[in-house]
């Protein structure tokens, strides 16, 4: 059987090519972001990336979503390093209007593309992609700029928009603990986009606080079944939260 445990973040992201489509897990908080995989991807340098993620980054620099307002790493470092061509997301700009993030600066300058997706539609498109579904109809976005160019249909007396499933080449996600088979458990609010994106990429890479032997996780408690996971990296002690 293929070995899933990788020894370093660099090794885990080494084969990501220029032009890849990548899902980045998390809602946007310090504990649900794959911070070490993001750093490794920045150092690896792949360019012209399409990112599928909730927020395009910048909250980490402001410490929004971390205890005590402590800054943390998020996808903004990939924009600063000019690795991003396009973002598909629900929160592209800074949460503090007076402190714009790298993505919105590049968007205003016409250097990156943006596809706005309402948060619930975004996660459902990812779920659909991972579940082998082509598309679905949702009432979210009807009567707004989101409906532009989309097929509309009345279902159960309500107008709905056709939204397509999303898949990616890679998903970089975060969990609390993995066993060597890739089964994952989470803590608190860590599941967010992580547990959904795990299902929707050709290669899903997870960073975890610890890795245990198969058999050590309670099968009743597993949230993400191991078949969704391809690569696992444990965060070294000195870099744990």
């Amino acid at each position, binding site marked *: 059987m293929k070995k899933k445990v990788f020894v370093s973040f660099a090794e885990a992201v080494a084969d990501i090519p220029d032009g890849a489509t990548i899902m980045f897990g998390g809602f946007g908080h310090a504990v649900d972001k794959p911070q070490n995989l993001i750093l490794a991807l920045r150092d690896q340098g792949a360019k012209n990336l399409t990112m599928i993620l909730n927020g395009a980054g910048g909250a980490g620099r402001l410490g929004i979503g971390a*205890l005590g307002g402590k800054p943390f790493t998020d996808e903004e470092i990939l924009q600063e390093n000019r690795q991003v061509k396009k973002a598909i997301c629900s929160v592209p700009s800074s949460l503090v209007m007076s402190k714009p993030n790298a993505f919105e600066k590049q968007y205003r300058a016409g250097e990156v593309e943006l596809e706005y997706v*309402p*948060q*619930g539609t975004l996660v459902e498109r990812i*779920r659909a992609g991972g579940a082998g579904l082509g598309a679905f109809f949702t009432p979210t976005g*009807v009567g707004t700029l989101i409906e532009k160019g989309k097929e509309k249909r009345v279902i159960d007396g309500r107008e709905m928009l056709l939204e397509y499933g999303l898949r990616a080449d890679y998903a970089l996600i975060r969990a609390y603990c993995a066993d060597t088979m890739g089964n994952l458990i989470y803590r*608190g609010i860590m599941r967010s986009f992580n547990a959904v994106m795990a299902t929707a990429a050709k290669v899903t890479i997870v960073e975890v606080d610890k890795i245990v032997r198969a058999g050590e996780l309670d099968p009743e408690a597993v949230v993400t079944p191991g078949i969704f996971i391809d690569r696992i990296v444990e965060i070294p002690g000195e870099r744990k939260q």
Partner: protein
Amino acid sequence: MKERLDRETIALRVAKEFEDGWVVNLGAGIPGLASNFVPEGKTVIFHAENGVLGFGGVPSTPEEENPYYLGANGLPFSALPGMCFFHHADSFAMIRGKHIDVTVLGALQVSEQGDLANWTFPERGIGNIGGAMDLASGCGKVIIAMEHVSPKGQLKILKKCSYPLTASRCVSLIVTDIAVIEVMPDGLVLKETAPGWTVEEIQALTEPKLIVSPNLREIEL
């Protein structure tokens, strides 16, 4: 200058709308403050879109804060008996699937028909939709908690929203620093006024013609 209700008092008035057993999602800003004012004797279950139901208030000391217990507003929450966690697809299934009884949101503009604009304005050139479109179109009831006019004095309750919409015909109640207004099929009904404010003064800060409720009264706190 007449006195306006402060942010906490707006939130307190909003919380009076909560019914026992309701599942409630609070947006950032004034709406979030409503968690402090759940009426005595009522229990509501708070939902945060990043995957938690049934959480409690902000811990009183930093030692009690847990890095895995952070709400969608970025603030730490405490555990309550019966709290549970789930992923984002389940979280928005709850929202679109009408399992959330009420969401309280802020607004940049609200129209006479109950249209809501709260995610951006044209001059910004970009904006954050986040979960607002799903919440506004998916929850059982949408209450708006906001200041009646913008900091620059622009009217926010309008015949038609000029900013990009979050959802159309979704708002049922507007609670501001000077009035409580219900969105009805035939127009906006002024139900309550802040102490010292007359109907004429509120109408002057509201573009659509207000229908004055026969039971008009001062806001009860």
